[in-house]
């Protein structure tokens, strides 16, 4: 197992970053949902921070095309890599890294905070989208099934919902109430805010943690979900909203839709 991985990373390291690397994600207008939008934005931000050019391709079947079933994924040369963690490792194998200057303790902290975001913010997003009856029937299921003809749209949307609900049950989130979800998000935001303090980035210079936090916070701030007041929770921590504004203006020149 280890030798296959090291061989793969050696092969990845052998070639430089290709000119025609592409990032595949779901169409933003009518299909993508909050959790996938956050992950896609995080990866896009990370690649921008590394100054690696990438072409964004929208495909309705991006989720099925992905090697792990999750969006986004990048196609660089002969390699197809999905999700932020493996993409960071892949990019590191090619010689670009944002966290090389950190010492061991800081690296540990960065990993911990990234897991915090995955553990609470991402899980909260999935809960809101698929475990809440109102949101799932009004927003999630119609959007998820939009590229397919009847009756496939209903079948696939319900299949996805069943799978996510089972996952929520497995990690103990299925029985949570709306208030408990708000509490979880509040606690994570408080922790992120306390860690960020008055700095521009979490560790002095931009790292993958900044990309991940920005991806999720920006998506949560700019998405209106009926019945949930997540943007207000985030706005209680003004250093987090400033953090988002800062990254938005610095890395995304077309920030005209910034509703932060």
């Amino acid at each position, binding site marked *: 197992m280890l030798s296959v991985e090291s061989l793969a990373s050696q092969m990845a390291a052998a070639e430089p970053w290709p000119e025609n690397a592409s990032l595949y994600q779901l169409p933003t207008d009518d299909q993508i949902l909050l959790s996938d939008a956050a992950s896609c934005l995080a990866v896009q931000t990370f690649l921008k921070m590394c100054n690696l050019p990438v072409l964004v391709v929208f495909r309705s079947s991006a989720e099925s095309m992905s090697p792990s079933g999750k969006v986004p994924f990048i196609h660089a040369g002969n390699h197809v890599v999905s999700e932020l963690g493996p993409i960071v490792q892949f990019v590191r194998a090619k010689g670009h890294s944002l966290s090389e200057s950190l010492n061991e303790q800081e690296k540990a902290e960065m990993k*911990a905070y990234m897991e915090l975001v995955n553990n609470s913010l991402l899980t909260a997003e999935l809960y809101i989208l698929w475990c809440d009856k109102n949101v799932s029937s009004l927003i999630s299921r119609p959007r998820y099934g939009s590229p397919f003809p009847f009756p496939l749209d209903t079948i696939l949307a319900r299949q996805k919902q069943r799978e996510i609900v089972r996952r929520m049950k497995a*990690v103990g989130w299925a029985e949570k109430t709306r208030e408990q979800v708000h509490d979880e998000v509040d606690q994570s935001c408080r922790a992120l805010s*306390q860690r960020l303090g008055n700095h521009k980035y979490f560790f002095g210079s931009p790292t993958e943690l900044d990309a991940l936090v920005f991806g999720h916070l920006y998506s949560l701030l700019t998405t209106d979900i009926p019945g949930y007041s997540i943007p207000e929770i985030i706005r209680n921590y003004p250093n987090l909203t400033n953090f988002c504004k800062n990254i938005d203006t610095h890395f995304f020149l077309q920030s005209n839709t910034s509703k932060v």
Partner: protein
Amino acid sequence: MEIIRFLRRMGYKPDSHLSAKQEADVVAFSALIEQMLLPALLHTFWVDPQNYVELIRPWYGASMGFPYNLFLPYLNRRKVISRLEFSVGRLPFITIKETEAQIYRNARECLNLLSHQLGKQDYYFGNLPSTLDAVVFAHLAPLLRAPLLGRTLQLHLKALPNLCRHCSRMLDCCFPTLSAEGGSRPEREQMDANLQKLTELVNKESNLIEKMDGNLRANSKSSGQGKSSQQVPPDISTNGPTPTAGH
């Protein structure tokens, strides 16, 4: 984690000596442990066939009555397997062997990170224990002390001396009666004695929680208490040692 939150709301704050940044670190590292270490612990105890059959099933079976010991361990094992599938991934994208390899890789990385974070200090944040020390201890102690048969993760942990010392320190500090016992010995009698002590300990804890709960109900001034008191899971008082930090 629910119990920790409940206790915090009640005003029990072991973290009053921490700065804001350190408090945030507590939350982050707890999430790290839950995402990266907990799946491997669950796997070692519940899914690894040798450990499950030789150790866990008899332990739980002994403390549950008949007929619960016939199917409750099995149900718990299925719950654990489904949780592990969702934590890393499952067929058709990833095979079971790869899932297991990934889980243990994550756990080893997590142990290394915890060891780096602790460094040469006594506790994670200065000279007083904090919530993070409790969380780390709760996860590592069963791994260190249980007489496991499938032992790769245990060996990795034993190779990190500062974490082992931290565990012993926490044991001395918080459970002085238990620390009188030696290290893990594979004899059956020693196992049973350990189990007895741990069960007593867990019962003491749950009695404490019930007492606090009782006090709460007597006062019942602050909001949300009715809800939080229901979050104490009932099975903690009937089962033996749980590797999870309370769900």
